[in-house]
């Protein structure tokens, strides 16, 4: 790892990356100490490369039916998952869910994926979700807000214990200037969208993480509630936007023509009255 990484590190240094170029000798001699080189790429940030993580957050709530009492009528789960149900643990270190103050210990911390929280209750309220990232990703946390929904929108239908109320929101976490370390680590991770690197920038091969079979699986592909997950697809939205833009552009063209027509006529009128 060391020799090849050191050679690739020097090439692209000059044009793009602003930061101290590491001295070649020090890297080559320190063959047995990968932490030094890692520390250097820890701090180097890449401009023009934006990493985005598509996520879906929301809640699923089941009515408890016969087992419901006054204070616990629904069992709900609030969560943050990858949009394609991939493991978010590569990016997110922990998630903190801030519940209504009437709950016991309203600040719930989830240290490992899947980042979710299940509770029983009767009320709808706003949940503040704070996402903390790994140290090489970002040192600032990010806040999301989700209004917990338990009761279906149309109150007419009978409540069923089998069909839950599902409210999900799609969003993307954007890291505008990711560090090289982060980029190197996630370049092959499915949960993260890494754009094509600009020409000339090459990354060291990713440091092998701990054996994946040891870790508890963090993806939600086989989650017990996955049948209720919404499948967000941008194709429909893109189509509608394209159609709308087409219409607007046509109108713009028409107006522009009309304006020039009138201007032409005004000029003519002016020239006539001058005579």
């Amino acid at each position, binding site marked *: 790892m060391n020799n090849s990484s050191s050679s690739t590190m020097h090439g692209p240094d000059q044009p793009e990356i602003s930061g101290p170029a590491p001295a070649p000798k020090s890297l080559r001699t320190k063959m047995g100490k990968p932490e030094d080189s890692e520390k250097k790429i820890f701090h180097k940030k890449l401009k023009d490369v934006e990493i985005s993580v598509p996520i879906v957050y929301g809640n699923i709530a089941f009515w408890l039916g016969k087992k419901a009492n006054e204070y616990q009528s629904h069992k709900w789960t609030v969560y943050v998952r990858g949009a394609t149900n991939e493991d978010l643990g590569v990016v997110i270190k922990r998630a903190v869910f801030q519940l209504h103050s009437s709950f016991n210990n309203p600040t719930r911390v989830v240290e490992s994926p899947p980042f979710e929280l299940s509770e029983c209750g009767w009320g709808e309220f706003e949940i503040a979700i704070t996402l903390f990232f790994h140290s090489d990703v970002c040192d600032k946390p990010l806040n999301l807000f989700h209004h917990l929904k338990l009761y279906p929108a149309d109150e007419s239908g009978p409540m069923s214990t089998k069909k839950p109320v599902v409210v999900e929101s799609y969003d*993307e976490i954007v890291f505008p200037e990711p560090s090289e370390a982060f980029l190197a680590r996630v370049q092959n991770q499915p949960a993260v969208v890494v754009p094509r690197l600009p020409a000339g920038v090459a990354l060291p091969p990713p440091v092998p993480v701990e054996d994946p079979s040891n870790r508890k699986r963090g993806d939600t592909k086989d989650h017990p509630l996955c049948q209720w997950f919404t499948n967000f697809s*941008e194709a429909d939205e893109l189509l509608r936007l394209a159609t709308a833009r087409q219409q607007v552009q046509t109108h713009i063209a028409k*107006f522009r023509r009309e304006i020039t027509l009138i201007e032409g006529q005004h000029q003519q009128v002016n020239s006539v009255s001058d005579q």
Partner: protein
Amino acid sequence: MDAKDILGLPKSTHPASQEKKSRPLKESQRKPDGISREVYALTGGVPPLMPAVEPLQLKKRPPTDEKITWQWLPFTSSARKDNLQLYHWVIVVNGIPPTGDYSFAKYNKSVDVVKYTDEEYEKHLTDDMWTKEETDQLFELCQQFDLRFIVIADRFSSSRTVEELKERYYKVSRSILIARAAAFPGNVSEHPIVKEPYKFTQERDRKRALSMVLSQTKHQERKDYEVLAEAKRIAESHMAARNAKESELLVTFTMDSERAIVFGETLSPPSNSEFAPAMVAHSTSMAENASTLVSLRMLRVYLRTYALDQMIQAASSSAGLRTIKRVEQSLQELGVNLKPGVPTKAVCAQHLDLRKEILTLLNLQKQLQHKEAEGSSYRDGLYETPGTPKDRTFVPECTSSTVDLIYIHWMSGDRVGKRDQKRKALGRAEAPSLPAQSKRPRKLRASDL
């Protein structure tokens, strides 16, 4: 009375019955219970309006079995060391006077002032600035006055400042404590005197600073405030300058890449007047874009929806509230969500561009209306002066087609029907500036395009 005379009614019986009535009435009135008659009369002889305290309750007291007397007895206090005999009233219950110390003796607290022996003085505490007598006097006063240094300074024989006295006292105490701790193993490092030694210079400066602040005149206060505000402004301008420099760099970069696209996109025949304002608008909008990009980059992490909101705000910063509402209305009519349901990078970019295009469209519409207004003023002028027939044929043509564009239909022709009526009214309301409207407005249909 006279009336009864007139009527000839017997009056002999009445006076008698009246007297009888009044007397028993008065007697019943005179029966207050609990308080004496005279006192009751003070209230006017009538019972008070407000419920007063029941007179019965006033005199009664819970009957006690104990005999309570008060006696003037001597007492002693553990707080006094001089055996002074004082007296006070004491409640005696059943002949037994109260026992125990004087109840206020527990408040007699004092400070543990260190007491050193002469030996210790010789060993640890000699000082150039202080004689032994002075130090002894100091400590005596400290003991007497419970470390009230201002009083001690006043009573001190030679004139020493409060800070000097304090320094001497704390230095001596500290040295003694440390010395004694060395002899008998014990941990004194937690003792406050040892942990935080008295700093003479710091104290002197601090007090001086405080007195300066206190004695500042109003004039000085105002000047200080102004200086601070100026400093803040300078700092902020530095920040702004740094930001502006970054955004400038970005603008120049994006301008170069965008210019190619701008040139490719123009559809209408180039007319100079139109082009220049479009370019200016474009560059200012790009500058706004650039500055939002910079501010987003500074965040290090953000949500795509947040970024989109910021960009939308930047793009519509020049537009008024009504225009923004019209943009949103147009979006709804086009069947587009105001907030994209799947905000990916591509979707957000398209959404933003669509909003910008709608803004352009609305601006063009306004421009057209203004041109139309100009045109009508021309027309008025023409109708007054004898003009050639050629002029008249031109002008009505242009009015019929432009006035129709007052309101835009996005829908296809067949659905226009009923909505037309509503739209007509809206159209009129939206374009009040048009002075001369043609008598036969023909609604523009989507099929016309």
